């Protein structure tokens, strides 16, 4: 089909030029017009190469002879001069079409190589930007198949799978290492494949190695950090466990010592110390438990539909009398949230505890809740010294007490646990840096659909 079309087009080109010469014949010497046939030969040579250009050259000269050179309408020539002219034209046509075809071939070749080079550049930047080689393979295989002229392709790393006919497969080998296989729907030019695939294989090999090294580095870093955390925990725990224990022991020995002359008020004070310090120990132990669950990823949330109000009620009840300082303003239209109630309650308790701890007992701690862009946004604001000078990135790390805020009591576990539980439930927790005085922590929880009550 394609060949027939080309032959017809070639003949048409010869016919057109013949017609043009016929038109020009009255105004120019006929021998000089023969050169016009090059306009038929050149495009054919450029487009389809010598196999078409040569017959077109011969056909042109035959047409010239038949139509224009005397005796007309024969292939005979009356004049030997005409023989020479015809021979020169033919030789010119052949040489020119040969040159045109060659330059065309070079151009095509150059385009091909440029395409291959840009393919490799694209592949290498895709692999560099992506964290996972596997995610990029589909796109890369598609591009490679396209450049190789196959309809579809897929790359399988470390694969030895035999191709399912009519699929063909090409090993991707970098140096002596087999990286994987490229499977193509059709057979492709082995020469181009042989030029392109080693480069592709090397790029893939480098990317696979880089990913593996990155993973190892991350594991090492995680280990190092968890070691550092453990050391920090041990140090802080031994300090934080010892101080309440010391107070309890001193108080009990004081109470039990018959040699001491204690008034009823003194005794009550010692008993209150024992009670307070035991509670402190208890809360430290629960915090450590929460933290260790978060660290090992065992804090799997069990979500249910809750209201912020309901969870806040539990949080305030758990905080007891100190929470009387908390002033609560919740919007009327707060949607429910779908979270683990105990964990988000813990987040609220820790945020409020933190705010209460770092602000004067005469100042209020303000908690507000509003609905914004599909989230329930809870802000806890205290009028304490604020977070100026605090490294906000480290604020949520365990045993970070917010710079000078370290003067207060507590292990610095609260915010780390709050952030851990918030994130486990799809919520976000951050410090609002826009407040000029005091500190404001913001908890943003995705809203859940509200119930539609069926009326009985």
């Amino acid at each position: 089909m394609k060949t027939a079309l080309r032959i017809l087009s070639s003949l048409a080109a010869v016919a057109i030029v013949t017609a043009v010469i016929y038109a020009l014949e009255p105004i120019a010497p006929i021998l000089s017009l023969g050169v016009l046939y090059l306009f038929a030969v050149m495009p054919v040579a450029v487009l389809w190469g010598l196999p078409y250009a040569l017959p077109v050259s011969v056909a042109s000269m035959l047409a010239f002879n038949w139509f224009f050179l005397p005796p007309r309408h024969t292939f005979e020539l009356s004049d030997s001069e005409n023989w020479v002219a015809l021979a020169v034209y033919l030789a010119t046509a052949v040489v020119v079409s040969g040159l045109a075809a060659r330059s065309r071939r070079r151009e095509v070749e150059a385009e091909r190589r440029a395409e291959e080079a840009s393919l490799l550049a694209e592949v290498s930047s895709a692999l560099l930007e992506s964290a996972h080689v596997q995610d990029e393979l589909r796109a890369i295989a598609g591009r490679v198949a396209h450049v190789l002229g196959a309809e579809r392709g897929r790359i399988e790393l470390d694969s030895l799978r035999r191709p399912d006919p009519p699929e063909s497969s090409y090993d991707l080998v970098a140096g002596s290492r087999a990286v994987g296989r490229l499977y193509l729907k059709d057979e492709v030019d082995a020469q181009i494949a042989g030029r392109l695939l080693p480069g592709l294989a090397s790029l893939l090999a480098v990317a696979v190695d880089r990913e593996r090294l990155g993973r190892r580095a991350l594991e090492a870093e995680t280990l190092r950090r968890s070691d550092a955390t453990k050391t920090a925990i041990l140090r802080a725990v031994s300090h934080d466990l010892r101080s309440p224990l010391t107070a309890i022991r001193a108080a009990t020995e004081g109470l039990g010592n018959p040699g001491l002359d204690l008034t009823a008020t003194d005794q009550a004070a010692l008993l209150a110390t024992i009670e307070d310090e035991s509670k402190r120990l208890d809360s430290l132990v629960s915090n450590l438990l929460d933290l260790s669950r978060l660290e090992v990823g065992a804090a799997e949330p069990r979500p249910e539909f809750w209201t912020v109000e309901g969870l806040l009620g539990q949080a305030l009840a758990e905080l007891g009398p100190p929470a009387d300082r908390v002033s609560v303003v919740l919007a009327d239209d707060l949607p429910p949230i779908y979270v683990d109630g105990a964990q988000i309650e813990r987040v609220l308790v820790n945020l409020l505890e933190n705010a209460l701890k770092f602000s004067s007992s005469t100042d209020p701690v303000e908690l507000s809740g509003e609905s914004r862009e599909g989230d329930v946004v809870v802000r806890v604001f205290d009028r304490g010294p604020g977070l100026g000078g605090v490294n906000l990135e480290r604020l949520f790390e365990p045993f970070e007490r917010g710079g000078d805020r370290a003067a207060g009591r507590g292990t610095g576990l609260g915010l780390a646990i709050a952030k851990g539980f918030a994130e486990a439930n799809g919520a976000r927790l951050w410090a609002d840096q826009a407040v000029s005085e005091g500190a404001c922590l913001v908890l943003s929880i995705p809203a859940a659909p509200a119930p539609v009550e069926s009326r009985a």
Partner: protein
Amino acid sequence: MTAPPILVVDDEPQILRALETTLRGAGYTVTTAATGEEALTLASVRPPQAVILDLVLPDRSGVEVCRELRGWTEAPVLILSVVGEEREKVAALDAGADDYVTKPFGVDELLARLRAALRRVSDTAEPVIRIGELEIDLDKAAVRQNGELVRLTPNEFALLRLFAVNEGRLLTHRRILREVWGLAYQAESHYLHVYVSQLRRKIERDSARPRFLLTEPGAGYRLVDPES
């Protein structure tokens, strides 16, 4: 003849010692057991008026002991649990335990729970229940607060009614779902906590600081009389 004893079951001797001393001081007779088997034997020999039961015992779980006790005695069972045993705690409550306290607990709290559990043993529902300024008319399905009618949806009334007839008593989520929505839970039963919040908005002065309808984290809810 002395009053029936309180049976305390825990495998840690310090806790047994502390509880025994405190309960005696509060005027109760006390027997103690360190294992589940021992507890069941003691209870069958001398039926206790209440059982204080640790969830984790060396030979069997507190949940099993609770279930077995419920087979033949109505004596209230108070669970001792620690943070991290929420699942077992709820299982024990669903198996018939009446209430729980979380270790480490205050003695006052334990005694209050014990008194409340003992008081509830002979409770009968009356047609009109008064709790603080709330007046719940079960027959007419009407609720008044300080004489003013409170408008409740059918679900909200069903919830309040269940809480009111079980005043002071811990109701687990499962029990509330079963009694309000029936065994074939409807989709809206997932919204239990949301309905409780809505109910609070109607009966509490400050719904973020409830006085009547208290949450027992991880276990259930309890309606109390704030003035008692």
